[in-house]
């Protein structure tokens, strides 16, 4: 079991990198001693946060069916430096910290956006923040219009505590 680690992933804001982020964080959580059920929870939270960076931060996926070709038209990677997402992962004695950072449009009213079933997109459920909250131990969102968004989440490996108690 790995006591301490620190890894950051930086990538073009395209849908395919959401799965890449999940895989990375799941691997690091596994090394840190998280159980399979806990890793599944972490994967969901990461998936929601990174999807938001791609979809809302940078509007990369036209979830609105009226503009289905936006990403497929392949215009989004022309200036990759402008549409980058960064996922920072830290592990310290069973505490996993994940920060998802974009330089996208940001949010005017974070409290409004974090309510369950609230979405700026009619095709989405508005449950992203709710799932992050219910599947991690803590969630903090820092955002402002035009300033991008930073979502920071932590989770403690419960299996570790149970294991230590059993010894």
């Amino acid at each position, binding site marked *: 079991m790995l006591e301490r680690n620190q890894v950051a992933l930086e990538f073009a804001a395209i*849908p395919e990198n*959401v799965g890449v982020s999940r895989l990375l964080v799941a691997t690091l959580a596994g090394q840190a001693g998280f159980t399979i059920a806990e890793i599944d929870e972490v994967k*969901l939270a990461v998936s929601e946060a990174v999807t938001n960076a791609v979809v809302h931060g940078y509007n990369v996926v036209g979830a609105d069916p009226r503009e*289905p070709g936006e990403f497929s038209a392949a215009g989004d990677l022309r200036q990759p430096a402008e549409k980058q997402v960064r996922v920072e992962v830290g592990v310290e004695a069973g505490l996993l910290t994940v920060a998802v950072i974009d330089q996208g449009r940001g949010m005017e009213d974070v409290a409004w956006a974090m309510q369950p079933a609230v979405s700026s997109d009619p095709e989405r*459920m508005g449950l992203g923040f709710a*799932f992050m909250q219910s599947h991690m131990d803590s969630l903090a969102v820092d955002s402002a219009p035009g300033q991008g968004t930073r979502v920071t989440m932590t989770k403690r490996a419960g299996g570790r505590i149970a294991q230590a108690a059993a010894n």
Partner: protein
Amino acid sequence: MEYERFGLTLMLRPSGELDLVAADQLRQVADDLLARGRIQHLYVNLERVEFLDSSFLGALLGRYRKVAAAGGRMGLIRVPASMRPFLEAAGLFRVLAEYESELQALTAS
């Protein structure tokens, strides 16, 4: 995304991790057939699914609205036990019927 048509019914069999990429595939496959009147009913077999997030759930509900508006039926098949609490929290079962097998879904009225 793997699928099969039985008359006016579309049976989708997605596998692996279902996120916004799979959500987009679901939209493309289903909306085209719905728009051309080739299908009326939609079932999604989740047997081989290992992960799904709110993007895919949103795409499922979006398809439900279209199918229901056109008077069709939609349901989920073989929902993995580990995903049940999650789908319930998202309110999926309030609108989507659930079946134990593809046959059961196809023979339900």
